[in-house]
């Protein structure tokens, strides 16, 4: 069994406190992970500026090249993992075993991470709108004859990471090439990506002093957030609410992503069914970019029926099955609690579980110790139904009947909105809607990301402050 230490600026530290990470189905221990403590992090953060210093000793251009190399190592190499090593296949098996995510999805997420590392130059060019990257390093320069200055707001970024979707790691991969250090607090069931990525960076020549990894509980997450000048945290609605308006913290929570079908297109809804299925099902519906609501003014029952028919064929399969499309719930009782919450919401008038008609088994299924929730499509006659605003970590979607003119007022905060309409008035309203983050116009799956575009805020703007800067000859 592997033992994963705390990494304090790249140096392993074996804690007396360890947390076992176990196989979601068998309970078999896969690794013992050292648990950090808050004071240790606070103490280490006194040397945070060193992380940026060592990274600034390399030009950003060189760091981009090394990030690309790290991506290749991450995808293909056997890398150190705690007191042992781990091959790419071993990584996939371990990640699947502890997160419940099917192995093929783990592989897909690996490709996403490697793609971002490989395309780092284009991504940074896009995120900086073509800024000469050495300005981020020197802090000032000139562009189109105008003096410009960008000031890093923290020498390191703290990341309180989730266990549910390894694809979110793409968000922090550009940090090292920006010459900013990483302070990673892995999700309790998914220590694998932070450790493997850190080792890939180290093997690619990124200084060890630039990266810390602090596994642990809530106190460790709190210490990371308290100690770093800029942080990304992943959590539920309470987490997002807690950090709203805090300039030091970018909170990533539920997406409540949606597909809106305009009146001008809804009569040919069948042509968009594949987009809907992909948006709901991809990555087992775990991501914030998965669609949890499809809104239209008519044909909603037919849409719900057709979706339910397609999704009812999805079965809980072993994680190594190449056709597995559903992730298991790894925390006992979670699936049952979610299923009960859905059942409670189904008691409201005008709300019905459409999938129930097409399934020959209950929503929740158990296979050994593993719990799964089968895809669920709920029809709502009106947006007032409480369940129309719900999102769960499995393929769950409400199909909501709502007049087009009321949609934008009713949908609430929406991370990704794919709006299928050619109506200029509706399009104008969508473009102006400030409660929509990512907007797709046309039949684009909500899960389809363009990596050259910002996600929930531009990372550059979060990490760097544009400010006035003047010089005079002395």
């Amino acid at each position, binding site marked *: 069994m592997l033992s994963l230490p705390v990494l304090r600026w790249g140096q392993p530290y074996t804690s007396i*406190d360890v947390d076992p990470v176990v196989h979601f189905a068998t309970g078999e221990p896969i690794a013992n992970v050292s*648990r950090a403590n808050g*004071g240790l992090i606070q103490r280490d953060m006194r040397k945070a500026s060193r992380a940026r210093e060592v990274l600034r000793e390399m030009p950003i251009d060189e760091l981009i090249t090394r990030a690309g190399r790290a991506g290749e190592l991450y995808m293909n190499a056997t890398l150190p993992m705690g007191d042992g090593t781990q091959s790419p296949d071993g990584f996939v098996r371990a990640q699947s075993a502890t997160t419940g995510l099917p192995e093929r999805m783990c592989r897909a997420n690996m490709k996403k991470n490697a793609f971002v590392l490989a395309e780092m130059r284009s991504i940074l060019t896009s995120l900086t709108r073509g800024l000469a990257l050495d300005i981020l390093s020197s802090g000032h320069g000139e562009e189109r004859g105008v003096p410009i200055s960008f000031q890093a707001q923290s020498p390191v970024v703290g990341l309180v990471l989730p266990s549910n979707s390894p694809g979110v790691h793409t968000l922090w991969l550009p940090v090292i090439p920006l010459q900013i250090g990483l302070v990673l607090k892995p999700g309790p069931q998914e220590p694998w990506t932070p450790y493997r990525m850190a080792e890939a960076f180290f093997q690619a020549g990124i200084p060890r002093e630039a990266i810390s990894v602090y596994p642990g509980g809530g106190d460790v997450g709190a210490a990371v957030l308290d100690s770093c000048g800029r942080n990304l945290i992943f959590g539920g609605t309470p987490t997002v609410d807690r950090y709203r308006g805090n300039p030091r913290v970018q909170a990533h929570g539920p997406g409540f992503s949606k597909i809106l079908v305009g009146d001008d297109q809804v009569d040919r809804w069948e042509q968009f069914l594949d987009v809907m299925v992909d948006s709901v099902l991809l990555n087992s519906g775990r991501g914030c970019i998965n669609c949890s609501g499809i809104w239209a003014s008519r044909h909603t029952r037919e849409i719900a029926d057709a979706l339910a028919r397609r999704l009812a064929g999805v079965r809980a399969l072993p994680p190594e099955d190449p056709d597995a499309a559903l992730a298991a719930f790894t925390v006992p009782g979670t699936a049952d609690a979610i299923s009960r919450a859905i059942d409670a919401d189904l008691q409201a008038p005008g709300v019905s579980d459409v999938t129930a008609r097409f399934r020959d088994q209950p929503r929740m299924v158990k296979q050994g110790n593993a719990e799964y929730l089968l895809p669920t499509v709920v029809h709502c006659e009106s947006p007032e139904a409480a369940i129309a605003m719900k999102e769960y970590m499995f393929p769950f979607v409400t199909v909501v009947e709502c007049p087009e003119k009321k949609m934008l007022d009713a949908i609430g905060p929406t991370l990704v909105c794919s709006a299928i309409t050619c109506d200029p008035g509706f399009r104008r309203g969508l473009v102006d809607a400030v409660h929509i983050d990512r907007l797709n116009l046309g039949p684009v799956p909500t899960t389809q990301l363009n990596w050259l575009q910002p996600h929930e805020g531009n990372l550059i703007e979060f990490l760097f402050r544009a400010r006035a800067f003047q010089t005079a000859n002395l």
Partner: protein
Amino acid sequence: MQRVQRRCHEGGRHHALYYAIMQASRPDQSRGIGVATDAPRAALDRQVREVIEWHFDPSTGSPFWLDFAKKAGWDPRREIGGFADLTRFGQFDDEALRGGPVERWIPKGYAGRPVFVFETGGTTGVPKTRVAFEDFRVDYDIFSATLPDEFFPRGANWLMLGPSGPRRLRLSVEHLAQTRGGICFSVDLDPRWVIKLIKRGWSDHLQAYKDHVIDQAVTILQAGHDIRCMFATPKLLESLALRLESMETTIRKAGITGIFSGGTEFTPQWNRFAHEELLDGAYMTPTYGNTLMGLAASAPSGPHNNYKIAYYAPQPRAAIEVVDFGDPDKLVGYGETGRVKLTTLTKEFFMPGFLERDEGEREPACDKFPWDGISGVRPYRGFAATTTVGVY
């Protein structure tokens, strides 16, 4: 029966009177606290009989326990012959400590004496209270005997870096300093406000309040009072050490040679971290306790035992049992995990079988403490999700 004796490394001088009887023989580990064949157990049984006689005698007992006996329909003075019989009382409901009149807890035998009232934590509602006369002084006299003079010099001044207000701990530490010939300095710290800040998620305010407390501590340490000993909660000790480090000094360089600390945050890992990175050679000993029980000292802990912390109650004045989660009358085996059950046996306060909000592993006796102990103390799993650990 086989005896299992764990060896502790002596860390300091013993309180002669208190420990003389305890060292006479060793407990039978295979049957634990329920066996009356050893001196500690005999002392515990004697204490039980004496305390029961006092609290249930109409001329000396407290109105609360006299009323209990009247309603219960049985006479504890006749039916309680030793510690094992205390299960007849069932589990102590600490809700009984909420609200007034607090006088119902004052033994008639102590009527007219100056009385203290101490409150437990709590953020909302009426706090739980315990009356006291001398218990806190006696408990800390006993604890004082466990402190090594080398690190807690007689006559040295102290800093109490912990909660102020209606807290037993605050007066106790002051008494400890006084009984050792020193003077105790303290800070203003309202732990209830800290818990409110945590629950409200006001992290900026929390940090500001912590800074405010540490400001006070640093000011006192720099004021020329020659402070060499300190009580601090783990979180505050950590904050103080980090502040001093940012001032390019250390706890030890600030003059502190001995520290006692306590709380469920005091884990072996934290203990190691503190010794390796915060204390700069200052001596630190862990303690476990609360307003209701008193203070459990620790067997010496350090690199020799991987910083394991085992606590031992001040028997026979109080006892800690580690009991089955489903059956609080059943002790778990040595090394096994169970819930903390506290019993307080003084003439000032009788509290049989209180299930504390903590759990841990049952520990065998050791040289220094020849009765059961507990290690790995942490919030009880049944309440852990709802427990807010504040300044402790």
